[in-house]
């Protein structure tokens, strides 16, 4: 079988030190405590596909996302992206900016993910300048217009501040910023969980359309089975930092092996209602 995976994660683990301060430890005589957030997780994502990680809050899904994009350092395991090693325990995280440029992230909160003091045009311009993608000023401006157009916003929006937009529009700006560096791979960390249901569908459709147009590969983090069902080509279920089940959406939803997966589905109201009706 030819290896067509874009991203491969092997044996990824991350612990957090949740010990009390050393003085309190000394007085009480208790030792340090470690919380295992991610425990030996391995999966791979095929090029142009969407892999969804689902789980309750605290299951470690956001930590995995943050480790993959390099915001958090894994304790062990390797991450390979597009044939390059992004992290291994010996050499640590890669400093290669060409690799970083291929990875972007869309964040959960449309309210804190955009700098409130920056105009939208400057927000979109920043990755273009930071990676030195386009040097000429007018070409940079054109690219910003193109990005706004791609996510369904209009050219004059570049001169506005984030607070002038609704949550859904802000999430579109956030997506445009992710696209600005011409990435191949985007981590979507619960991109719709802070939005109204009606707006969720629009943002999800935009993400799907961009995936088709730009051959993007997605890692989609969510706790919402209904959202995951429409987005994912493959789903991994996380429980307490472990990948407990992994399958195609159809098979997973028809016949979940784990009771935990069943419980996740039942906890999604629309989904449970849809099954009953």
């Amino acid at each position, binding site marked *: 079988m030819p290896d067509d995976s874009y991203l491969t994660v092997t044996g990824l683990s991350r612990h957090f030190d949740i010990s009390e301060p050393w003085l309190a430890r000394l007085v009480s005589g208790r030792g340090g405590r470690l919380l295992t957030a991610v425990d030996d997780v391995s999966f791979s994502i095929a090029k142009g596909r969407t892999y969804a990680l689902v789980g309750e809050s605290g299951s470690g899904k956001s930590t995995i996302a943050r480790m993959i994009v390099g915001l958090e350092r894994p304790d062990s395991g390797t991450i390979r992206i597009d044939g390059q090693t992004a992290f291994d325990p010996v050499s640590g995280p890669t400093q290669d900016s060409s690799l970083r440029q291929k*990875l972007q992230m869309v964040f959960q909160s449309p309210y804190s993910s955009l700098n409130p003091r920056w105009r939208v045009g400057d927000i979109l311009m920043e990755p273009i300048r930071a990676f030195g993608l386009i040097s000429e000023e007018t070409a940079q401006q054109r690219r910003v217009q193109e990005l706004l157009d791609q996510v369904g916003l209009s050219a004059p929006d570049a001169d506005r501040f984030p607070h002038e937009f609704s949550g859904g529009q802000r999430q579109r700006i956030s997506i445009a*910023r992710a696209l600005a560096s011409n990435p191949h791979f985007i981590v979507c960390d619960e991109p719709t969980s802070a939005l109204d249901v009606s707006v969720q569908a629009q943002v999800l459709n935009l993400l799907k359309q961009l995936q088709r147009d730009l051959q993007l590969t997605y890692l989609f983090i969510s706790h919402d089975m209904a959202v995951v069902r429409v987005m994912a080509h493959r789903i991994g279920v996380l429980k307490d930092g472990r990948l407990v089940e992994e399958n195609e959406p159809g098979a997973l939803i028809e016949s979940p092996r784990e009771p935990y997966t069943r419980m996740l589905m039942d906890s999604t109201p629309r989904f449970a209602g849809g099954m009953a009706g």
Partner: protein
Amino acid sequence: MTHSPHTAPPTRLQRVLASDFVFDFTRAPLAILAAAVVAFLFLVAILAPAVAPTNPFDPASLNLMNGFTPPMTDNMFTGERFVMGTDDQGRDLLSAIIYGLRVSLFVGVMSVLLAMGIGVSLGLVAGYVGGWLDNLIMRIADIQLTFPSILIAMLIFGVLRGIIPPDLRDEMAIFVLIAAIGLSEWVPFARTVRATTLVEKEKEYVQAARLIGLRRGQIMWRHILPNVIGPVLVIATITLALAIIAEATLSFLGVGAPPTEPSLGTLIRIGQDYLFSGEWWILTFPAVTLLALALSVNLLGDWLKDTLNPRLR
């Protein structure tokens, strides 16, 4: 927002005039009065050479015969009149106050800028970088807070004067004063900025900036600084009042502005020598000016604090 996202954005001036800030200001008579007094005193200080009747720094303009002339009275020897009278050297008190105001405000503003520069930088670094550096900076701040800031300022003043060669001392006196007061007032800036930085650095826009590979310095300067500067301006206003009083205190104690370039504090010190011999005006007019200035700046700072921090209301 009343306008839809697709109409032309309002100009900067329109936005400022329509802001809650301006609305609140027009409904706070005390703030308007304080702002007017501060603006008036700043204007007088800046325009001193044009406004003052004489140049009190110019020894040639002084006539010892004019000494101790009471306000609005003809001098018994020269027949000259002075609105606020003269001091022991025959110096016109109104001119001396106007020029003294200039020295006080210059020292006050410059030392606040110095304190702000030091405090904001250290606070940003402590909050964003964290770890041992954070501990080091904040413990130094804690230690400094255990001493009254006027003592710190006197200590720094003494040390700096010891370093500077004697023939430059009078020329450098003002800058030594600025350094002493600036270094004694940075702590509130650093604490506030550190606290806001700790909140801001966890926000997702900072993580987005890290993702595109910006260096720490760029993230602190371009992303975090604009979002933590609001409270700093409030502290700067309150610190300005403190710095003006600190300068006056140092000058009153004789370790601040030299008598050749008197600030309001120096004038008050000169004046208190003559209070009990009946020449009340030499002390009273500089003191009232200092009081009006410090009180107005303080009132303005308090109003800013209350207005910009809705949680306190």
